[in-house]
Each structure stands twice: as structure tokens, then as C-alpha cells.
């Protein structure tokens, strides 16, 4: 499914410069090097980390989008950074597990 289609399922868009990007699989993690070592290209990446390095990791690891779970908020300056770097970021009010379960039903 496309990243932009997540909006119809309760995911709030925070930065959506490349909404037509296809999601292929999901990865969950907060340790950034672990994510870079394990996440696959085009994965939707679920995390609760919200510092600037998250945007860099999403860009370099080439994930399709970052999904901030547990309702954590991205600082406004990082919203701008994400938009400038073409990084899709959405948020979910649900806990990580419930977010993942929901995605499992949406992403093949």
C-alpha cells in the first residue's frame, strides 16, 4: 500500500512529501544502529525516538516512512527537516504493539 493511504486508517500525517511511496514490510526499533543494520529498504519504521538522527537514519536506510507510535510528537523544527529531506512521518496514538498489529492487517 502507499504511505498516504495510512491516513484513512487513523495515522496522522506529520510530514508527507513522498506519499506515493509503497510500503514493503515493517520494522520496529529505537536503537538507531540496530535499525540501520536490520531494517529493509521500503519498510515502514515504527519508533518512539524523535530526535534529528531519526530523520537521518530514515533517509540513509531508505525506509518508506517513519511511524511515531504512542502519540509521541516530533518537534516543529524536525517536521521542517523531514519535509526538506523528503522523509514521510506519520503518528499513531496507539502503543507500539497495537500499531504493529494494525499495520500487519494493512501491509502485506
Amino acid at each position, binding site marked *: 500500500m502507499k504511505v498516504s493511504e495510512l491516513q484513512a486508517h487513523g495515522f496522522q500525517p506529520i510530514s508527507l512529501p513522498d506519499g506515493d511511496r509503497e510500503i514493503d514490510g515493517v520494522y520496529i526499533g*529505537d*536503537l*538507531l*544502529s*540496530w535499525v*540501520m*543494520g536490520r531494517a529493509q*529498504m521500503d519498510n515502514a519504521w515504527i519508533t518512539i*525516538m524523535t*530526535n*534529528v*538522527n*531519526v530523520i*537521518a*537514519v530514515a*533517509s*540513509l*536506510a*531508505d525506509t518508506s516512512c517513519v511511524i511515531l507510535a504512542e502519540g509521541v510528537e516530533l518537534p516543529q523544527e524536525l517536521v521542517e527537516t523531514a519535509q526538506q*529531506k523528503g522523509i514521510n512521518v506519520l503518528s499513531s496514538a496507539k502503543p507500539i504493539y497495537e500499531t504493529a498489529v494494525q499495520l500487519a492487517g494493512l501491509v502485506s
Partner: protein
Amino acid sequence: MSDALVFHFDVDGENFTSAGQASTQVKKNLRQLGLPPDIIRRVSIAMYEGEINMVIHADGGTADVSVTEDCVEIVLKDSGPGIPNVEQAMQEGFSTATDSIRSLGFGAGMGLPNMKRYTDSMEIDTEIGVGTTITMRVNL
């Protein structure tokens, strides 16, 4: 054979939040050269891990990236404290990063292992009190 394309970067040791600028720029440059996405991803991640290491442990350094017909070579050079035990540092999970670094999501002990994982060759030249030079190659 044509000359190598060379990119040079200074990695700022003071500024943790700007770490990744060199790797992001390299990613852009490699994209413009039309290299395959998988190669670009491997080079970018390996270089970013190296950049982060230089910021965390060595107060910055330099990064030189050259692209030839055969490979992308990344040379990261710092004047930091050196790595006392390279074999130990190469083990996944081993880290000497502080709690404040860990709170940023780093310090998982995956930096050097990821650099090795994503490149075709990696050489570490380190001397205590003098610095560390890491040379990585990704074959094209």
C-alpha cells in the same frame, strides 16, 4: 580508465545533531551518478555509522569518498584516542558510549559491525593516542 571522482568532508566533532550531513551529501552525489539504490544505501549507512563514531569518540575527523569504475571507497580519518581492542570493538553489542549518547538512540554497539556488514572490505588502522583511519570499499 577515467580518474576517480573524489568528495572530501570535514566532520564536526562538536555538533551531534548535524552528524550525517556528509553521508547525506554522498547519498545525493551517488544518486546523481546513477548508482544502484542498494549500493547507495550500503555506502550511506556505512559512512553514517563512521561519522557518528567520529563524533562520539574522536571529536570529529575527515571523510574522503572516491568513486571509480570498480568501487566506492570511503576513508574516515580521525585524531581521536584510538581503539584499544579492535576485535572487541567489532563484536555486536560492545559499546563504550555514554548514557547521554545512548539516550539519543546510539551506543547499541552496532556501528563497526554495521560498517563491516554493508561493505565488501574494511580495514582499521588505529594507534592509541594518535587516531584511527578506517578504509571501506563497496564494489560496483
